[in-house]
């Protein structure tokens, strides 16, 4: 991977983002504008931290748990968050997000990121329409082909929907380092706007080819599994946060890990999932303050790997 100096880093990060009306008081107590990055294909700016919903928002028809999810979303929006990611694969998560949006009065800043996940290309449009209906939105912002399932057929559908103004962005996803060669093939040959891959201080395979290709092809990158579904956080939290974490304005492990991820200039947004308000506030803190430069990024990765 090519080294990244602070100038390049700062040039790639826009700090002119939209702080929410309620003000970005982060979990670390920092004040200041939320840090955003542009979607390369349009220049639209997104906060560096989004909200995933895998596992955490699949609570079925449990009303108390649904209300807890809505409170997580309220805290997310209050701290300036925009992008919420889900999939038909995540059980009732789409429905729970729609419930939360309704309870919060349909916040205008939400950026809806969903997926199509069905082996039949012909049934893709119906699944996408069902997803849109569950969100309760006139149209979805981003629809990605989940884990490359029937991607040739689904991309045709998604590009046609984008051309017709029925969605704004098209993407593809994978996770856990699967099928990167195929992901590269799609990135190189298709005019997609987003790609979603796993990236964190321990899972860095995408730094070799996927992230450089994303920059070259002007494709936005969503980083999933930033905490390895919680296992990474549980592992590092047994150890004290290093004092030098303050150099990256990180008050806790979650912020340090997220800042490692989103400070890569190819990454547009990390999407940690949580069912807790205190955790979403910690996560959103990574959207504020100083980002680590390349030297500090290397230090973070080496330290996490050593634990």
């Amino acid at each position: 991977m090519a080294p990244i100096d602070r100038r390049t880093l700062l040039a790639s990060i826009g700090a002119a983002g939209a702080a929410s009306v309620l003000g970005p008081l982060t979990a670390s107590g920092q004040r200041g504008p939320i840090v955003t990055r542009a979607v390369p294909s349009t220049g639209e700016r997104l906060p560096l931290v989004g909200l995933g919903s895998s596992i955490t928002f699949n609570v079925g028809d449990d009303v108390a748990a649904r209300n807890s999810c809505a409170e997580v979303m309220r805290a997310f929006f209050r701290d300036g968050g925009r992008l919420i990611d889900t999939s038909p694969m995540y059980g009732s998560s789409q429905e729970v997000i729609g419930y939360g949006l309704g309870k919060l009065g349909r916040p205008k800043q939400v950026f809806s990121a969903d997926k199509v996940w069905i082996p039949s290309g012909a049934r893709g449009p119906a699944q996408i329409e069902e997803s849109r209906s569950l969100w309760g939105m006139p149209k979805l912002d981003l629809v990605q082909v989940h884990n490359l399932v029937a991607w040739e057929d689904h991309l045709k559908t998604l590009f046609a929907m984008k051309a017709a103004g029925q969605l704004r962005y098209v993407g593809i996803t994978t996770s856990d380092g699967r099928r990167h060669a195929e992901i590269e093939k799609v990135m190189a040959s298709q005019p997609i706007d987003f790609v979603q891959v796993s990236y964190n201080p321990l899972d860095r395979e995408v730094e070799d080819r996927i992230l450089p290709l994303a920059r070259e092809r002007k494709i936005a990158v969503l980083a999933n599994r930033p905490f390895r579904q919680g296992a990474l956080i549980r592992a590092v939290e047994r150890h004290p946060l290093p004092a030098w974490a303050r150099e990256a304005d990180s008050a806790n492990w979650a912020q340090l890990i997220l800042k490692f991820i989103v400070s890569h200039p190819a990454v547009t947004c990390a999407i940690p999932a949580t069912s807790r308000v205190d955790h979403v506030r910690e996560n959103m803190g990574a959207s504020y303050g100083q980002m680590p430069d390349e030297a500090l990024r290397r230090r973070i990765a080496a330290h996490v790997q050593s634990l």
Partner: protein
Amino acid sequence: MAEWWTYTLSDLQSFSLETYYRLFARYNAAIWPVPIVALGLGATVGTLAWRGSDSRQARLVAGILAGCWMWTAVAFHATHYASVHRAAPWFAWAFGLEALLLAGAGFLGRGLSLERRGGPRAIGLALFLFALVVQPLVGLLFGREWREFEVFGIAPDPTAVGTLGILLLAAGRKRWLLLALPVLWCAFSAATLLAMGTPAGWLMVAAAVLGLVGSGRKGLGSGLNL
């Protein structure tokens, strides 16, 4: 889906342990006082199995077991579990099939016979006692609230384990046909629980192994007739 081979169990694990536990609390509340009735039916099955039963009583055992599997298929899998697990409707069909197999074993042909002695009998009774008495309480050791208990006859795990225990008392040529789904469920549930990070999954592993080992020790020529 050609891409299934790329998924691991944790990829398909789409809900948290907390959500899973809360599901049982809401299920128990929704069907109350059925859990009490189920405990009574379980005690009846256990008593008949302990004594060793004549053919009429053995039919009652088969009938109760079949009813338990059917109830779990409809009331738990299809109605409650389906709200968080995409495959729950398939689980409902599998549990319904086991209900039919048990009913067929109990009421067709020469019916079911429960043995009064034999090596696997102790294992079978121990498994059933575990399912009826220990399994509803053991969750407390793993951080569950008391309202989130699982009861034999209405929740899939103790129903599968308890049925395994009874089947160890009921030998027969087609025993493996009846054992297959309870063993498969124990294995699947173990994998699910372990993927969610709870060591309770190992109890289901132990149940499946005991069921298979106990059944393997039995002769194939006597007992259950289909």
